[in-house]
Structure formats: structure tokens, C-alpha cells
């Protein structure tokens, strides 16, 4: 699993990846009440806002950690947004992306680097 400074995670299998927000982000947002998931088929450039996670006190854009095409979105989140709080880095995934440029992964942090980064915040 790889991480961004905007607190997204990427779990890679071949040239496909699940993406979501980190436990740190979910905790900071508080109780998630709504997730705006992306349309399947949408093409994303790295850094594009592709989803919105809302709590009572904040709404946060989720940025694409990698470029590619949305091949699946987690529709379960519509009925159960609290999944993001319960299991942010597993069942709380937001979209599955088919990568267009695997080399972009190199720029992302591994868990140890992300945790170091968190300790600086």
C-alpha cells in the first residue's frame, strides 16, 4: 500500500489499484455522513479531485493519487458512509482505477514514510 501527502492510499494489483482515504484522514474528518463516488469510466489525471467525503463539520475533496480510468466505484458507501470510519483502508475504498502510468507510483510514500510524514504534522 502506498500513500500521498493528501492522505489517500493506493493498493496495487498489477496495473489496477484500489484507492481510498487513510485512517488518519478519516479520524480527522470525524463521522463520515456522505461520500460522492466517481462515475465508472471517468478518466483521471493524477491530482484531479474525483470524490468528496463529507462529515458534519467538513467536506473534503479526494484527489487521484495516480492517473487512470475509474473501473469500479464503491457503491456500498452510499448506504453506509460510516464504513470509511470503520475500515478506511479496506472496506472503505472509494474507487478502483486502471493505471495509465505505473511509474507514477514511484512518487508515492510507503507506510513507514507516510507515518514519518504524519509525525511531522
Amino acid at each position, binding site marked *: 500500500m502506498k500513500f500521498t501527502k493528501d492522505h489517500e492510499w493506493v493498493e496495487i494489483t498489477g496495473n489496477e489499484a484500489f484507492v481510498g482515504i487513510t485512517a488518519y484522514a478519516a479520524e480527522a474528518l470525524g*463521522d463520515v*455522513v*456522505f461520500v460522492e463516488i466517481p462515475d465508472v469510466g471517468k478518466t483521471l489525471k493524477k491530482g484531479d479531485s474525483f470524490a468528496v467525503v*463529507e*462529515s*458534519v463539520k467538513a467536506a473534503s475533496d479526494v484527489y487521484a493519487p495516480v492517473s487512470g480510468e475509474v473501473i469500479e466505484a464503491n457503491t456500498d458507501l452510499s448506504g453506509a*458512509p*460510516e464504513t470509511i470510519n470503520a475500515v478506511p483502508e479496506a472496506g472503505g475504498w472509494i474507487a478502483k482505477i486502471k493505471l495509465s502510468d505505473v511509474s507514477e507510483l514511484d512518487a508515492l510514500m510507503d507506510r513507514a514514510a507516510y507515518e514519518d510524514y504524519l509525525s511531522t504534522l
Partner: protein
Amino acid sequence: MNAESPKMNTVGRPSAPELAVETTSFKSLLGGRGLLQSEKLIFEKDDYSRTGVDFADIEIDAADLDGLLRDDLSLPGLTEPEAMRHYVRLSQKNHAIDLALYPLGSCTMKHNPRLNEKMARLPGLGDIHPLQPVSTVQGALALIDSLSHWLKTLTGMPAVAVTPKAGAHGELCGLLAIKAAHEAKGQGHRRTVLVPTSAHGTNPATAAFVGYTVKEVAQTADGRVDVADLASKLGPDVAAIMVTNPNTCGLFERDVVEIARLTHEAGAYFYCDGANFNAIVGRVRPGDLGVDAMHINLHKTFSTPHGGGGPGAGPVVLSEALAPYAPKPWVVAGGAGFQMLEHDEASSSANFGRMCAFHGQMGMFIRALTYMLSHGADGLKQVAEDAVLNANYIKASLQDVMSVPFPDGPCMHEALFDDRWLEGTDVTTLDFAKAMIDEGFHPMTMYFPLVVHGAMLIEPTETESKDELDGFIAVLCALAGAAKAGDVARFKGAPYLAPAKRLDETRAARAPRLSYS
């Protein structure tokens, strides 16, 4: 007569509480709390056929509306006594200025004079139609002209657009005038608006709304705009800056004249958020500070009622440079009385359009003018001075108990505290605010401005007496003592005594129920 005879009470009743029973967990049968009645929704009545008006039920032959008539109307009706009960019961669940201090920072919750209400209802003012021939509403146009004169004189600005319906609508009006002015000068490429980090959320929202890119300007350690940072960001791409003065930390921008100079030098306009005008009305004229546009929340500075959240009114004063772009309609005085310029041909052809139907919040103009006439120039100056005095008194009285982020120098009309003093108590700003409810006060503005951690922004206004302030200060000192002494339950469970306990906002937002079904 033997006063101790037990017979004395055999036909009467005990005249003092008899037993020490535990009363805190008592629940009434219907869920109310004595005078605070539990009140159902009007939609929960079984019978929707009642009505509180006596109109005849006539038969009509609506031949021309064949196929257009509805048969699905389902709305509950109340007779007059039922309606009075319903709304009076509901009213008693509200806090209000008329009940107690309502120190919401940035909202200027001052006393609402009842003369304002009476004047707004005068026949010939409250009942006239916006499209009556102008010959039949000369008094209305004269009143708008008079209000305009007061606003222009108090702000030292040459023009005012009166139609915006609220503060945020006024911001929109100001920015659209700025945009139109730039476009007229061939400066339409200016796409950036600079906004300090401490700004009201409406400032960046409005700027982004009309297509500007918002750039933030840093704040200095003493809570003001960082002029060096501003200067470095001003350039040929900047259309305007939006600065609140006095700012949202309750401080006067000492460098405001320099800020205006730099802004104009860069070819940009200075939009001032006038939300805090109450602190300086009658004492400082924004026109003397170099402002190009400023909205005035009539419900703040000029005492029109807040009404549970509106209606407001947000006239915008404009500099000479922006005046030609003001939206229609426009009142002008002529030889034959006042005219209302409503069309592009008649009003300035440079106007940027129309903010709303008709001519603005006349009901609020009447109230605001009544208030201005009552105070006069001298009274309004005293308003600013007393508002500032009250805020500084609160700051001076609480600064040793709570922590102040910007301790040096006076504040203006509101006193800002942060939550450093709560560190280690397990009590948050929110908990502290909720405990104030149990003491009969409305909480202060919390967590705003965003630049101060756990912010508590207290705006007492000039209409509080010293006695009220002293009572408030004593309560806050005592609550602060309780927090520091570890009485966490007082705060975490608060409010205990309000008409409702803390509400589940998460539940409301996850599965929204916005209407009865």
C-alpha cells in the same frame, strides 16, 4: 389561639416543600418540562380539515382551467386558538436577545427597537406595492433616498446600491461591480482576488462563485493582514482584495490606509466586508480608509431584527470608480420628484444587471432609517464607543482566566479568546459553550475565525448594561474555575437544562429527513 395546633393544616395544604425528594431524573408523562410543553408537528394532527380563516366555500366553474386543477392538496389547518398555542409553545424553546445576552461574535446581536417594527407597519409603507405608479409612492422613494444619504454620509462614500438582500448578496454585488469596472477598462484578465486567512467564509465563497481564483494572504502574529505578504501577491492579475475591517479577530487593521494604497497602485479595488461596521459607525468613515466597495448588514449595525435567520439587507456603498456599474434599479431626484430608473436605457448603461426582482428590502430600510434617526449622528458615535468599551471590558475581565491570542492593545467590538487555557482539562470550546446554555446565556461564536485554535469570539454589543456584563463575566469565571477544577461532567453533558439535550447531527446528515412523511 394556639398557633401550633395541628388543626391549622387539616383543611389547607402544606405551605413549604415537605420532603427532600430527588427531582433531577423526573420525567413528565407527556415529555414536556412544565411550561416547556412538548409540541407535536402540525402534520401529526388527525384531522386536516380545520381552518383558521373564515372564507365562504364558493362553487366555481373553472372551464378555462380544465385539466389544470389539482386534487392532491394535503395540508393541515389550525383554528386560531390552536395556532396561537402551537407557535407560542414553540417560541418558548428559543433563546432570544430579549431574554438574555446573545454574544455571537461577528453577528452583532443588539437590541431591536420596537419603534422600528411599528414604523415598518405604517399604512403607506408596509402595504404599498413595488409596481404602483411612481407618482403614488413618492414617500417610499424619498425614504430610500434618505436612507442612502445616511449610509453615504456615515461611510464617506459617494454612492450606494440598495437592492442586495443580505450581506452575502451585497458582497456579490460589490464583486460584480468590480468585475464590470475592470472589464470596462480592458482589465478583464484580472482573475485573482486576495483574501486574508481570517476572512468570513462568504468572502472566498463569493469570489470563487463569480469565477475568481482566491489567493490567501497571511496574517501577522498580532492578528492583522501581513502587508508584506499582500504586497508580494498584488500584481497585474489581481482584481480585488477583500478585507474585513475591523477584522474577524476583533482588531482594527492598523495598516488599512497602506493596504488601500498598495491595492490601488496595483490597479486593483479594495472590497471591505462591512460586517463589523458597528465598531466604528459614526467615528470612522470607510471612505477615508480608501475603500472602493463595502456592504452594510442592516441587521447588524442598524438593528433590524435577525428573525431566526433573516431576512437581512445588504446595501453596498461604492466609490466614484465603481458607482457607474451599480445594478438597477436606481432612485434619482428630479424636478418633478423622485424617479425610479428600472431599464437599461434610462439607468446607467454600464450597470451590471439586476440583483433581484423589485427594489430591495424596503421593510428593512424603514427599520434601519428609524434606528438612524433615533440615534442621530451623536448617538451612533456613542454606539460604536459603547460597543468597543463593552468588548474591552469583557476582555480585561476575563484575560486572566481565559487565554487571549492577541493580548496587546485594545480590541474593537468583540473579544477573542482561544482554547489554550482549556489544555489538559478534557473540556473543549464546544463543551464550554454548551455549559453556558445551562446558565441562561447564548454561547459565543465558536471555532471562528479559523486562524485561532478553538476560537471563542464574544461580541456583547452596546445594548448590554454593565450589570448584565458583570453577571456574564462572573458566570464565565465560575465555569472556567469548574473546568480547571476537573468538573468535566458539567461540560460534557451540557446543556442539562435546555429544552433539548445535545442533538445527533451525524444521524441527521447520514439519512436526511427534511420533511414530514
